[in-house]
């Protein structure tokens, strides 16, 4: 199973800044292993960020997003103690959801 995400959510004025790191290979499907066999593509396809159940960001990714992906963005609202929930799903159907509290 994939390692947990590292999520930082900080209240800045009337907004919340979210920074997330995800543990994922993001394999392109274009590389070959030592034996010359193509390493199959394996990458996160969808990401969703919610704040108190409301979606604040959703994304679709291809394999050109860098390994161990990083995203930083801001949304209006959010108070210290509110919950941020982030979910990703990859092309194998593996999924991971993690939560953080706005600081």
């Amino acid at each position, binding site marked *: 199973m994939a390692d947990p995400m590292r999520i930082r959510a900080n209240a800045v004025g009337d907004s919340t800044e979210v920074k997330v790191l995800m543990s994922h290979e993001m394999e392109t499907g274009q590389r070959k292993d030592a034996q010359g066999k193509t390493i199959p593509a394996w990458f996160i*396809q969808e990401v969703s960020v919610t704040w108190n159940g409301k979606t604040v960001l959703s994304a679709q990714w291809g394999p*050109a*997003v860098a390994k161990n992906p990083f995203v930083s963005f801001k949304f209006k609202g959010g108070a210290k103690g509110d919950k941020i929930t982030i979910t990703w799903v990859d092309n194998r159907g593996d999924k991971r959801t993690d939560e953080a509290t706005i600081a």
Partner: protein
Amino acid sequence: MNRERRTVLRAGGGATLLSLVAAAGWLRPSDALAADVWNKAAFETNSMDATMKALGGGTPAQSRDIAFFSTPDIAENGAVVPIGITSAIPNTQSIAILVEKNPNMLAAVFDLPPGTEPSLSTRIKMGQTSNVYALVKADGKYYVASKEIKVTLGGCGG
């Protein structure tokens, strides 16, 4: 529900992965939800025209209201290239990143619901020196800005 799911990108947000998972609480990851929503066609193109077609838009207009930030002119390693994009276009609904010379142009699409700032940063891979496009959808129309990023060799080279 199904129709809404498939048009998530074209609609520029609205239905989302998590709300769908929540609505259909019985769904499990093995149900391959992602494959159903993910815009496969858009991620398999290798020209701007084809990508725009797959995204459901026309030729984007060049815009000076889209800016790159924290994005270097030269990347020391193509495996990780930081990209920051800000849109000053009113009602920005989504921001996409495209790399002209990657095997497939589209790297990522971010849908921004109202209330989310039209500004974000992430990291992409680049196979070689190339133009990178920031494609913005606002009020249903597409706009674009581009920047060349050189990919160099650092270190001992072996």
